[in-house]
């Protein structure tokens, strides 16, 4: 059963269409990530799900009932905001029980729920502090606790980790994922960070300019992107996409050459980790070397077009070296003139 079902959802501001005819479903107890560059409409979709934003067209179903016209607080969703939206004049405890008080939950039950939520996110010691005296990670936990006590099964998160440093972000990623599993929450999570999306999601909905580009599990999108955009948005460094006219095809392996004969092919794509240094193949010059310890990323140039190669070892290669690169036929992606993937 799906917890959320969105059909033909649109939102326009005057002449600008922020979200165009978007449809998707979110399975129950799953972790769905709305991923895309800024301005792709992902936050607008989330706000429409929450009810804080009006819908121009389309319908939203949450938990089996149509909530398109229902006010935010009656939709059965909780939300974690990018800036955490903690009330600065209230201490941690008051912040967590804010919604319970509004809904006039009896004091005894409130105490119990707050204590439980604080325990789950590890805030028990800090209940009397004001948000100003908390670190970024602690504030994040307060926001999570507030969402937990609301007892809603659907939780919407709007880039909750973007204000944290990278180490804490990695920790909180695990924590949120763990929490979602333990409490059986249905999470819709907005982010522009593909690492977050890849590591946390059951399902990624990739958006661009208000439209869905691709929907699928992380590995599905990574292994079979349906367009140049999907291919390049996910993966770091992104997939190398080269125009056939820009490369000297005569140097390529005969099997690859024959695969490129179709006239509809405009671009070819190969992931950096699938490129190999070899004796024969595409000639290239080393332009820069980034050493990360576990891997080394080479920036190479061929006929003034740059591309990346990723190596788990550290080959003895210097800046300015002239080498050849090759790849396997199976690792090559073909794209047509509309940047759509051609299935071979």
């Amino acid at each position, binding site marked *: 059963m799906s917890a959320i079902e969105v059909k033909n959802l649109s939102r326009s501001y005057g002449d600008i269409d922020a979200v165009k005819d978007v449809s998707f479903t979110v399975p129950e107890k799953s972790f769905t990530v709305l991923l895309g560059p800024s301005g792709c409409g992902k936050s607008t979709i989330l706000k429409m799900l929450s009810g804080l934003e009006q819908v121009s067209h389309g319908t939203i179903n949450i938990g089996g009932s149509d909530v398109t016209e229902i006010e935010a607080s009656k939709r059965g969703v909780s939300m974690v905001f990018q800036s955490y*939206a903690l009330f600065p004049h209230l201490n941690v405890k008051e912040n967590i029980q*804010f919604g319970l008080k509004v809904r006039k939950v009896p004091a005894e039950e409130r105490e119990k729920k707050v204590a439980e939520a604080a325990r789950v996110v590890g805030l028990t010691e800090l209940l009397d502090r004001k948000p100003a005296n908390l670190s970024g990670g602690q504030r994040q936990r307060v926001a999570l606790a507030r969402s937990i006590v*609301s007892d809603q099964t659907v939780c919407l998160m709007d880039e909750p980790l973007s204000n944290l440093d990278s180490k804490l972000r990695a920790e909180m990623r695990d924590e949120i994922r763990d929490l979602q599993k333990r409490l059986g929450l249905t999470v819709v999570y907005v982010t522009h960070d593909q690492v977050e999306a890849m590591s946390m999601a059951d399902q990624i909905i990739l958006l661009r300019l208000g439209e869905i580009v691709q929907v699928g599990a992380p590995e599905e999108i990574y292994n079979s992107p349906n367009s140049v955009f999907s291919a390049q948005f996910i993966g770091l460094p992104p997939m190398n996409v080269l125009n056939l006219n820009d490369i000297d095809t005569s140097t390529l392996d005969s099997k690859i050459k024959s695969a490129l004969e179709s006239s509809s092919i405009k671009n070819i794509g190969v992931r950096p980790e699938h490129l190999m240094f070899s004796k024969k193949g595409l000639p290239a010059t080393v332009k820069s070397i980034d050493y990360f310890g576990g891997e080394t990323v080479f920036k190479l140039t061929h006929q003034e077009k740059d591309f990346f190669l990723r190596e788990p070892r550290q080959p003895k290669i210097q800046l300015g070296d002239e080498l050849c690169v090759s790849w396997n036929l199976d690792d090559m992606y073909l794209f047509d003139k509309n940047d759509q993937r051609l299935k071979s």
Partner: protein
Amino acid sequence: MTYRNRIQTSVELIGAYILAGFWILPLLYAFWAAFHSSSDAMHFDIFSPLTLDNFREAWSQAPFARFSLNTFLLVSFILPGQLLISTLAAYAFVRFKFTGANVAFALVLVQLMITPEILIVQNYVTLSKLSLVDTISGMGLPYIASAFCIFLLRQAFKSIPKELEDAAELEGCSTMGILWKVYVPLATPTYIAFSLVSVSHHWNNFLWPLIISNSVETRPLTVGLGIFAAPESGVEWSILSAATLMSVAPLLIAFLIFQKQFVQSFMQAGIK
């Protein structure tokens, strides 16, 4: 710090002390005069005897207790009224999009630019039609919708992040609930700042209360004091000083206590 800088700092400091001295002089003189007999007050003999007679005299000559009560009632009528009306108005300006919002706000700003004295005659006419002449509510009514307060609160409300409001809305807060639980507590510094200004202004206001009040039952301290010091009865500086001190004492004490908040709240409430 360079030599030049040091000179500049000390010149500025001396200048500040001189100005501060000039400002405090009248108050210091009032203190001096209030505790000395009339003749001693003029001679500045440091050894002349201190006396409390002036206070006794002033207290018995005019009903200062009644005047104080009137002033207190006036201020405690105006301030809550101002806060209530301005809070609702500012909230409307910040949160609701309605046709004519900009025009309405422009009108508020225009009111900010008109000195209330210009409207004295018109206000008097209006209040007499309402039969509120010579009442404390009549004295306070023209000030009850403060454009300044609306403006300050609007600025304060505007600086409150939208996400806080969204969070409250999602938790089920009503529109008034959001105002009461989110906006008002977060604008507390602005409320304090405005309250201090409003109280001191209306405590000291003279012209309008003078015109609208006719009887001891409504006259506030300032007017009572003005009549007390009328030139035709001969000016007794010592007694007048004692009466003045009694009038400003509550404000003065409050200022000394809240000095820090007074200055701070204005730095925080800065016009944005």
